[in-house]
C-alpha cells in the first residue's frame, strides 16, 4: 500500500519513514505535518474557523478521525481509505482540497505517510482553554452574608465609600416607580413621611409588592425578555389576537409570586406538566407556552421547511437567551465562534423544538396553533363541528369538480365546434354597433318601471346596487310588446363608462353576458349616454326582457328596444355559443387563449391561428377535433396536456356554476347554505397561542444552516459543555421540552439562577452585575462582582425561586437606599458606577412616562380587566395602527395593556426605547433624542393630560400657591421652594396675557413645562 502511494505521488515515502524518532511519531507530526495543516487546512477546518467547512475540524487526532459531515477524514494506517488523502489527491470526486492550487507532491506524500504511520499527533493544533469558563461552573455561596458586604469589599478595594442614605421622599418615589411603574400619590408620601417607626421602609416595600400594580410593572419587564407582541410583524403583519392571554398570565404570575422554576417550566412545557383537574390551572399552563409561539415568523415563505426551521431557530435562540443568557442561535450554521457550543448541540436542542408543534401548517400564509380554553367535552364538540364544516366544504368541492370534469369532457370532444365558434367571435367582435340614441325609434322603458324585479326603483349611480334584504340574483323584467317578430336591438342609457351591465335574457334565453359594475367611480363623468347591449330575436306580441346580475346590479337609467336595421347581425358571445352548441365559459377561455397566443409557433393551434383561407376552416376544425379526441383517448401527449393545462381552455370558467345541471346547482346552493349556517353556529371559546407535542424525531445537522444539505442526526439532549457527553438522550415518546425545563431548573445548573437574579438586579440598579444581561458567554461582559452574583443566585434557589423575596433582599440593602448624589472623587475613580458607590439616576421608561403623566393628571384608570383593546379579529392584517383610529392608544389604561403592534409600534413606545419586540432584550436603552422632545411638546397624550391637570388644579379650592404646590407634589413628589412658587405664579400670570386672558391655557402651559422638565422623567 505504501509503495503504491509512493509510486502514485512520485515521491519516495521510504525516505521519510526513517525520520520516525521513536517517539510514536509526535516529532514527525510537529516537524512535517503540523506546518502543512496550519498552512493549508485549519483556516477552514478548526473550531475557530468561521464557518467550519464541512463540519470538519483538524484540531485533534480525534477530530480528524471523527471527521465532518462526510464522515471520517482519516483512517489511521490506511491512506487509500482516508478522505483527507483522497481529497488532496483529487480522487474524491468533486471534493478537491485545498481550494485553489493542488498540494505539492512532497506535501501529499508527507500526509499520506503520516496516515500510514497511524496518524500520530502532537499537541492539539489549536490550544484548548484549560480552565472552564466561569459561567459554566455552578455558583457557590461565598462567606459574606449581605449584599452590602459584597459591595463594600469592591468599594473598599478602590478606596471608595458609598453615598449617604437618600431622603424619604426620594426613597418612596424611587421604590414606587421601581415596583409599580407609577409615581406615589401625595397621600402615600405623607403617610410614609409620618410613619416614624423603624420598619416604615420595609413596610413600604411590602405594601408595594402586594399591590396589583406590581405585576403590571414587573410583568412588563419579563415581556421585554419574552419579545412579547400582539402581531406577527415580520413579513405578514397578522394580529395575534390571543397573545394578550400570555401577557395577562405573566402579570398574574408576578403578582402571585409564582416560583421562577415553575414559571420557566410552564412557559417551555406547561402542556406537559401532569394534568390538572382544575381547568383554570390547565388553561394557565397552556397559555404559558405562548412564550414559544409569540415570535415573529416569516408566514409567507414558499419553502415550508425553511419556514419551520426558522421558527425553531427563533424559539431556541429566544429560550436560551431568556433563561440562560447564551447565544445558541449562532451555532446554527457553524460551531459557536466564542462559546463552547458546537453545531451538533444546536441540532440536539433544535430537535426538541422541531418535535413540538407551533404551527397548524406552513402554507403561505401559515397558521399558528391555538389552544381552546374550554373543557374537554366542549373542545371535542368544537372539533367535531369544525370537521363537519370541513366535510361540507369537501363535499362542495368534490361535486363541483365532478361537474367541471363532466362539462370539460363534453367540451374536449368538440374542439372543432369550439374553434369555429371562436372564429365567429373573432369576426363579430370587429363589428361595431352604434347605439340607436333616437328614443322614437322604438320602445323606451325607465329602469324603475319594471314589471317584475327585486332591485330598487331608483338605482344607485356610483356603486353597485346590492339591496340588503334581498337575496341575489338581482333582476328587473320588462314586458315589451312588438307587432312584428324579428331582430331587435337593445340599448341602455347608463353612465359613460364603468357602470357595468347586467346579463340580458329574452323570453328565458340568455343573450348577452353582463360586465361587473366598477366601484368608486368618483372620476368618471356624470353625464350618461346610450350603450349597445345586443341584437336579440323577439316574437310577435309579448316578450320578457330580463336584466340580471348575480350579486351587484349595475346602474342604468332607461332601456331602448328598437327594430334592427343592420344588414348583418353581429352576435354576442353567448349567442355564438348557443349557435355552435358550445359552453360559453370555455369559449371565453379559448378566445382569450387565441388572443394571447396570436400565432405563436409553439402553440398546438398554430395551424389554425395562421390559417388564411377561411374556406378551409371547417375541414381544419374537423381535423383538429379528431386529433384532440385521439389525444384524449391516449391520455397523454402535447394536445392532451394543452386540454388539461391549468390555464388551458377547459379550466373552470368564471361563474362556472351557471353551466352546471340545475339539480347540481340546487344541490350546491343547499350545501352552501348549510356550510354557512354551520360556520355561523361555530361555538366560540377563548383561545390561547401555544405549543403542543408534534411529530417527534431527532434532527440532522443542517450543514451551514441549509436544510438542503444534511449531516448526521443528533440525539435530543442538552448542552454538553454543561452536562457532558454522557447524557441519556430524550426518547421517542416526548419532544423533550419538559426535560429541557427540568434541566434548566436543576439545582446545579450554572446559568438559570444567575441569569434571573442578574435581570432583577439590572431593573433595580440600572446595570446588571453582568452588564450584558442577555449574554453570559465570552462576548458578554464579565461580572463586576462575581461573588455577589453567585451569592444571590444561590439565595434565589434556596428561597424557593421567589422573585418577591429577591426584591426585598435587594431593596432593603443599604445600597438601594443610597442617594444618587454626585461625588467627584468616586466619579473619577469609577465613572460608570460599576461598583455602585451611589444609586444611579435613571430616565423613566416609556410606560412610566405615559402612565406617570396620566396619573399626575388624575386620568389613569385601574379598572381595566386585562384582555386586548385591539379591534381586529385574530389573524387579520394590521393596518398602520400608529396612525390611530384602529387602536385607541390614548385610552387611559396602563401602558402594559396597550397593544404592541410589531412594525407599527405606538409612537410613545417607539420614541422612548421600548425594545424591538422581536428579540429578547432585558436591558432597555434610555436615549435622549429630539423626537422625544417633540412628543413632550406636541403629542396628544401631553396635550390632553396637561389640560386635564390644569383643570384639576383650577378646580381645587385653594389659592394659586396651593395649586403650584399640588402640581409639584403630584409630579415631582416634593413641595416647591418658595422661590419656585413665586416663579410659577409669575409665569402663569405672564402666560395668561400671552393666551389673551385664558387662565386655563396659562395653567396648561405651566403643566406642560413642569411635565416636560427633566426632574419629572428622571428618578434620583
Amino acid at each position, binding site marked *: 500500500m505504501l509503495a503504491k502511494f509512493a509510486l502514485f505521488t512520485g515521491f519516495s515515502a521510504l525516505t521519510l519513514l526513517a525520520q520516525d524518532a521513536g517517539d510514536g511519531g509526535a516529532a514527525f507530526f510537529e516537524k512535517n505535518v503540523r506546518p502543512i495543516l496550519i498552512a493549508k487546512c485549519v483556516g477552514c477546518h478548526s473550531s475557530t474557523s468561521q464557518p467550519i467547512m464541512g463540519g470538519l475540524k483538524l484540531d485533534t487526532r480525534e477530530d480528524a478521525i471523527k471527521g465532518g459531515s462526510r464522515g471520517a477524514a482519516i483512517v489511521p494506517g490506511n491512506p487509500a481509505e482516508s478522505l483527507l488523502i483522497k481529497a488532496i489527491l483529487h480522487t474524491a470526486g468533486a471534493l478537491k482540497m485545498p481550494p485553489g492550487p493542488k498540494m505539492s507532491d512532497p506535501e501529499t506524500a508527507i500526509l499520506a505517510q503520516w496516515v500510514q504511520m497511524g496518524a500520530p499527533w502532537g499537541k492539539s493544533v489549536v490550544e484548548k482553554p484549560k480552565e472552564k469558563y466561569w459561567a459554566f461552573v455552578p455558583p457557590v455561596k461565598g462567606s459574606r452574608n449581605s449584599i452590602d458586604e459584597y459591595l463594600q469589599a469592591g468599594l473598599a478595594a478602590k478606596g471608595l465609600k458609598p453615598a449617604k442614605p437618600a431622603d424619604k421622599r426620594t426613597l418612596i418615589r424611587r421604590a414606587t416607580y421601581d415596583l409599580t411603574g407609577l409615581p406615589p400619590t401625595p397621600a402615600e408620601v405623607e403617610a410614609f413621611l409620618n410613619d416614624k417607626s423603624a420598619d416604615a421602609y420595609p413596610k413600604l416595600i411590602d405594601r408595594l409588592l402586594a399591590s396589583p400594580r406590581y405585576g403590571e410593572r414587573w410583568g412588563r419587564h419579563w415581556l421585554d425578555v419574552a419579545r412579547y407582541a400582539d402581531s406577527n410583524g415580520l413579513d405578514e403583519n397578522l394580529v395575534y389576537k390571543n397573545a394578550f392571554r400570555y401577557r395577562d398570565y405573566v402579570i398574574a404570575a408576578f403578582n402571585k409570586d409564582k416560583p421562577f422554576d415553575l414559571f420557566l417550566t410552564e412557559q417551555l412545557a406547561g402542556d406537559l406538566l401532569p394534568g390538572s383537574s382544575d381547568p383554570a390551572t390547565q388553561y394557565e399552563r397552556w397559555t404559558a407556552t405562548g412564550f414559544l409561539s409569540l415570535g415573529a415568523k416569516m408566514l409567507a415563505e414558499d419553502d415550508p421547511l425553511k419556514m419551520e426551521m426558522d421558527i425553531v431557530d427563533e424559539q431556541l435562540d429566544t429560550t436560551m437567551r431568556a433563561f440562560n443568557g447564551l447565544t445558541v442561535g449562532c451555532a446554527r450554521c457553524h460551531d459557536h465562534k466564542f462559546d463552547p457550543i458546537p453545531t451538533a448541540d444546536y441540532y440536539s436542542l433544535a430537535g426538541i423544538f422541531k418535535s413540538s408543534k407551533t404551527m397548524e401548517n406552513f402554507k403561505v400564509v401559515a397558521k399558528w396553533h391555538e389552544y381552546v380554553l374550554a373543557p374537554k367535552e366542549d373542545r371535542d364538540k368544537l372539533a367535531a363541528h369544525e370537521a363537519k364544516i370541513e366535510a361540507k366544504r369537501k363535499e362542495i368541492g368534490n361535486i363541483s369538480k365532478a361537474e367541471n370534469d363532466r362539462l370539460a369532457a363534453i367540451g374536449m370532444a368538440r374542439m372543432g365546434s369550439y374553434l369555429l365558434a371562436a372564429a365567429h367571435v373573432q369576426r363579430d367582435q370587429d363589428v361595431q354597433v352604434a347605439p340607436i340614441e333616437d328614443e322614437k325609434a322604438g320602445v323606451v322603458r325607465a329602469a324603475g318601471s319594471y314589471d317584475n324585479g327585486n332591485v330598487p326603483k331608483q338605482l344607485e349611480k356610483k356603486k353597485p346596487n346590492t339591496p340588503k334584504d334581498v337575496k341575489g340574483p338581482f333582476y328587473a323584467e320588462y314586458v315589451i310588446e312588438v307587432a312584428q317578430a324579428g331582430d331587435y336591438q337593445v340599448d341602455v342609457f347608463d353612465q359613460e363608462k364603468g357602470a357595468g351591465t347586467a346579463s340580458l335574457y329574452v323570453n328565458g334565453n340568455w343573450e348577452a353576458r353582463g360586465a361587473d359594475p366598477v366601484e368608486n367611480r368618483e372620476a368618471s363623468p356624470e353625464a350618461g349616454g346610450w350603450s349597445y347591449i345586443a341584437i336579440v330575436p323577439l316574437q310577435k306580441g309579448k316578450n320578457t326582457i330580463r336584466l340580471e346580475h348575480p350579486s351587484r346590479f349595475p346602474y342604468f337609467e332607461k332601456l331602448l328596444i328598437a327594430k334592427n336595421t343592420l344588414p348583418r347581425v353581429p352576435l354576442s358571445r353567448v349567442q355564438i355559443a348557443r349557435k355552435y352548441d358550445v359552453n360559453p365559459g370555455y369559449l371565453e377561455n379559448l378566445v382569450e387563449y387565441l388572443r394571447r397566443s396570436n400565432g405563436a409557433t409553439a402553440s398546438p393551434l398554430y395551424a389554425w391561428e395562421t390559417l388564411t383561407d377561411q374556406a378551409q376552416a371547417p375541414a381544419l376544425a374537423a381535423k383538429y377535433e379528431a386529433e384532440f379526441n385521439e389525444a384524449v383517448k391516449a391520455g397523454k401527449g402535447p394536445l392532451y396536456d394543452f386540454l388539461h393545462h391549468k390555464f388551458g381552455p377547459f379550466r373552470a370558467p368564471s361563474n362556472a356554476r351557471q353551466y352546471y345541471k340545475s339539480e347540481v346547482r340546487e344541490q350546491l346552493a343547499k350545501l352552501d347554505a348549510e356550510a354557512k349556517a354551520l360556520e355561523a353556529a361555530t361555538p366560540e371559546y377563548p383561545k390561547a397561542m401555544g405549543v403542543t407535542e408534534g411529530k417527534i424525531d431527532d434532527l440532522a445537522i443542517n450543514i451551514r444552516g441549509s436544510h438542503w444539505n444534511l449531516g448526521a442526526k443528533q440525539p435530543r439532549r442538552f448542552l454538553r459543555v454543561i452536562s457532558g457527553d454522557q447524557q441519556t438522550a430524550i426518547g421517542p415518546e416526548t419532544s423533550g421540552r419538559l426535560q429541557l425545563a427540568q434541566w434548566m431548573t436543576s439545582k446545579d445548573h450554572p446559568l438559570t439562577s444567575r441569569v434571573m437574579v442578574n435581570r432583577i438586579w439590572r431593573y433595580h440598579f440600572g446595570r446588571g452585575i453582568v452588564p450584558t444581561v442577555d449574554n453570559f458567554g465570552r462576548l458578554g461582559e464579565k461580572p463586576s462582582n462575581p461573588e455577589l452574583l453567585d451569592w444571590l443566585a444561590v439565595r434565589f434557589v434556596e428561597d424557593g425561586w421567589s422573585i418577591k423575596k429577591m426584591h426585598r433582599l435587594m431593596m432593603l440593602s443599604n445600597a438601594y437606599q443610597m442617594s444618587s448624589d454626585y461625588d467627584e472623587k468616586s466619579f473619577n475613580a469609577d465613572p460608570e458606577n460599576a461598583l455602585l458607590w451611589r444609586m444611579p439616576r435613571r430616565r423613566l421608561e416609556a410606560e412610566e412616562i405615559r402612565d406617570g403623566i396620566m396619573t399626575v393628571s388624575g386620568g389613569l384608570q385601574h379598572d381595566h380587566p386585562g384582555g386586548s383593546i385591539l379591534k381586529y379579529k385574530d389573524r387579520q392584517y394590521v393596518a398602520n395602527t400608529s396612525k390611530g383610529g384602529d387602536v385607541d392608544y390614548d385610552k387611559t389604561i396602563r401602558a402594559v395593556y396597550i397593544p404592541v403592534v410589531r412594525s407599527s409600534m405606538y409612537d410613545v413606545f417607539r420614541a422612548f426605547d421600548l425594545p424591538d419586540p422581536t428579540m429578547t432584550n432585558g436591558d432597555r436603552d434610555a436615549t435622549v433624542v429630539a423626537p422625544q422632545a417633540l412628543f413632550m411638546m406636541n*403629542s396628544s397624550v401631553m396635550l390632553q393630560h396637561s389640560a386635564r391637570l390644569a383643570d384639576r388644579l383650577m378646580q381645587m379650592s385653594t389659592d394659586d400657591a396651593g395649586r403650584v404646590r399640588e402640581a409639584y407634589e403630584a409630579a415631582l413628589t416634593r413641595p416647591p421652594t418658595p422661590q419656585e412658587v413665586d416663579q410659577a405664579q409669575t409665569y402663569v400670570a405672564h402666560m395668561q396675557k*400671552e393666551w389673551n386672558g385664558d387662565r386655563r391655557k396659562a395653567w396648561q402651559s405651566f403643566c406642560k413645562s413642569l411635565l416636560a422638565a427633566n426632574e419629572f422623567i428622571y428618578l434620583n
Partner: protein
Amino acid sequence: MNRHWNSYLNQTLSRRELLRVSSTGFGSLALASMLHGASSADPMAVKTPHFKPRAKRVIFLFMHGGPSQVDTFDYKPLLKRDHGKPLPFARPKVVSGETFNLLQSPWAFKQYGQSGAWVSDLFPEVAKCVDDICFVKSMWGSNSRHGGALLELHTGSDTFIRPSMGSWVTYGLGSENSSMPGYLTICPTQSHGGANNFGSAFLPAPYAGTAIGSVGVPARDAKIPFITNTETPRNIQRMEIDYSQVLNRKQLETTGPDHALEGRIESFELAFRMQAEAPELQDLGQESEATRKLYGLDNPVTEDFGRQCLMARRFSEKGVRFVQVSHTYKWDQHANLRRDHEQNAAEVDKPIAGLLKDLKSRGLLEDTLVLWAGEFGRTPTAEGSDGRDHNPEAFTIWMAGGGVKPGFSYGATDDYGYYSVVNKVHFHDLHATILHLLGLDHKKLTYRFAGRDFRLTDVHGNVVHDIMA
C-alpha cells in the same frame, strides 16, 4: 408680582448663554448622552468614512411589488421569437406560483443615447437619461415572496429583523444636518415587513428611518410624527420650553455633571429647530414653476410621485444622508400587466427623469447616489394570460451618480430573462457596493449586539468594482 418670570433665568444665565454653555463648556458632554452609555460622540455627528467616498448621500427610489425586467430595461429578443413556447429549461426549486409558457413583452424596446441602452416604451423619459445611468441586469435575491424580498432588499436578511441599509449608512456616516433626522423615508409601505424595512433594529434608535407620511397618505399631506402642534402658537411654545429649561438648569446646579440631563436640554432645542425647518423643507411652493413642471407636479398622474422626488432632492440638498421614496405596492402584476405596468410607469417616469436632470443641473448628481429598485423581478413566463409571477432569480436595478459608471450596463440574464447568469449580483453584493461608494467597507462597518459583531452584509457580500467610474 411685576417681575418678568424670565428674570429668574436672567439672574442665572440667559437662554442664549445656557445654550452656548450646554453645547460647549461642561455641556460638551451633552450630546454624548443621546446614546446609551458614555460614548463621547453625538450619534449623528459626521463621521469619517473608511476611505474616500464617491457618494455622500443616497436617494432610493423603491418600486414596491416587483417591476418586470423583461418589460422595462432587460431587452430579450428571443422572448418575442419564442412567445407561447414552453420554457426550455427548469424552473427554480422554490416558486411562488405556477406559470405557463413564455410571454413576450407587450412593449417595444428601442436603443437610446450614446450608450445605446435598450429601454422599453414604458419609460420614454428615463430613456433620455440613460447616459447617466448604470444598469445592473443580473440581480438576484433569495426569497420569492414580497415580505422576505422586501426585508432582504432593505436589511439584507429575509429571516430576521435587522437594521435597514439606511440605518447602517447613517450609523456609518452621521448626518450633515443637525436639525433634521439623518434618514428619511417618504410615504413608506406598511405591509411586507412595514417599518422593519426602515427600522434600526438593534442599532440605536436615532438611526431608524423617520417616516414622513405613510402609504395611502398623499405626499402633499405627509408629515414627521409630532411635528405640528395645532393648539399652541410658536411663540408661546418657545416660552413653555424656556420655562422647562429654567427648571432643568436649576436642577443641574444640584446634580453634578450628568450627560443625560444636559443632553435632554439640547434635545428640546433641536426639536424646536426641527419643527421650524422640516415644514419649510417640505414646502415645494418655494420651487420655480419650471422645476415643478420638470417633476410632473402639473399633471395629476405624476404629481404625487413627483412631489416625493422633489422633496427627496430638497432633503438631500440640505444634507439628509439617506432619503427613500416609495412607489408603494403597485408593481405586482400577476394579471393586467399591460394596463397596470403602463399606469405605474406613467406615474414615475417623468418624476424620476426630472429628479435625475435636476440633480445633474445642480451639480448634486456627482455625489448623490440614486438607486432605482424593486424587491424582485417577474417571470418571463405567463401567469394567466396577461400577467407574470414573482421572480427573485433575475431582475434589473439601476443606479446613477455617486461614482457609478454612467451609460453602463453590467451583468446579464439568460435568453429569456429568467435567471441571472453573467456577473450575478446578490442583494448582499449591492449593499456592499453601495457602502463602498459611500466610503464604507462593508466588512468593517459593524455593530456589536448580543455578543456578536453584526454587518449589513452578514457574512456575505462582494463589492462590484466593475460598475464604479
